[in-house]
């Protein structure tokens, strides 16, 4: 297996990186390109940019952000938010992104996963699953998607997804630790790489997540500070985690 991955996640709104807790209380924390490049220098294995208030008419803005990131960042990055069609995804990849992440659009029309995979390849298709108590939630976790999480994970794989980005809603932003049991159940149910998200508070939490998942998404634990990633990597290596 490739090395476990540390993936800083940057929530983007109106071209700026923002931070909220449990999908609320947004505040501006910087420029996506500057922060992305700094995380790359600090040892990030990949980056995820999630446009959290993307709408159809903002596709050009998303593509422009992806293009700016690609000019400065030489590690892989995923772009999510507002991608509803193969055309949307192709535009973002042509701008230099490596993967797209889809969430509510895939729940609304699961065929989208297969359409993206057949054109872009599975390795470029991340399905983000927001979950609470074994159920999937949609629209930034504000709605019950009326789906069982394990069943949806398996369906995503069958339809051609390349990775699952699993966020435990009740842990998100809490720094209480990842929901390891749920991550393990999902990992057992699929053969795809799983990216753990939601709840990282310290290095031990991340190390535990990397036992059951291929990668850990890092958000509030980093305090939007690339230097925190440097120290976290050091702490993880001391805990015996083999990193790049």
């Amino acid at each position: 297996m490739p090395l476990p991955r540390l993936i800083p996640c940057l929530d983007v709104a109106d071209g700026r990186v923002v931070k909220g807790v449990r999908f609320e209380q947004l505040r501006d924390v910087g420029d996506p390109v500057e922060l992305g490049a700094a995380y790359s220098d600090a040892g990030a294995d990949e980056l995820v940019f999630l446009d959290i208030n993307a709408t159809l008419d903002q596709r050009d803005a998303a593509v422009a952000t992806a293009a700016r990131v690609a000019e400065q960042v030489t590690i892989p990055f995923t772009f999510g938010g507002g991608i509803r069609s193969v055309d949307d995804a192709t535009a973002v990849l042509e701008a230099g992104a490596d993967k797209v992440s889809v969430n509510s659009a895939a729940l609304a029309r699961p065929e989208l996963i297969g359409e993206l995979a057949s054109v872009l390849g599975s390795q470029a298709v991340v399905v983000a699953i927001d979950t609470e108590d074994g159920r999937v939630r949609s629209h930034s976790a504000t709605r019950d998607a009326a789906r069982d999480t394990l069943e949806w994970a398996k369906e995503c794989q069958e339809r051609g997804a390349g990775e699952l980005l699993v966020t435990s809603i009740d842990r998100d932003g809490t720094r209480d630790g990842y929901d390891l049991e749920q991550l393990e159940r999902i990992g057992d149910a699929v053969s795809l790489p799983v990216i753990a998200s939601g709840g990282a508070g310290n290095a031990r939490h991340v190390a535990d997540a990397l036992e059951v998942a291929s990668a850990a998404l890092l958000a509030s634990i980093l305090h939007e500070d690339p230097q925190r990633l440097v120290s976290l990597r050091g702490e993880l290596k001391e805990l015996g985690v083999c990193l790049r």
Partner: protein
Amino acid sequence: MTTVAICRYGAGNVRSVELALQRLGATLTDDVAGADLAVLPGVGSARTAMDGLRERGLDQVLRARTKPTLGICLGLQLALEETEEDGGVEGLGLVPGRAVRIREGRVPRIGWAHVAARPQDQIVDDTAYWFAHSYAAESPAVTATSEGLAAIVEHGSFTGVQFHPEKSGAAGARFLERCLSRA
């Protein structure tokens, strides 16, 4: 000045390759037949990609080349005789062998992994490169592996890498720089 032509045939990822080569000072050209180095990038599905190459006549142009060609990821797999992907697709046949589905570990195989090359080759560093693939080459032309899977194939004027040098940070840039200096 080394001239480089990136094959454009509807398979994504061209922009990142272009940016990486520009950072290294390469002169980009559209002349795939005449460039000092041709780069065959590729992500996506094998069938769509091969159809795209044929439609543009790039399959013939690449077969006729005697100067170096670099295939990246799917670009490596397309250079083989065939791939298992999409129920079986005939490749360019620049390199003997075929691409087969990865049978171990989580697939797609995504992430950073070490590449083990013969010390005398000095084509890669002793470090990790970024991979994202579900198929891997089985070929007598394999010259470096990663966790038992083909990482580099070299045959005649063709070099193929399964990893993405354009996304492998500083190590990837050093690899591309060597390709440019050899061309």
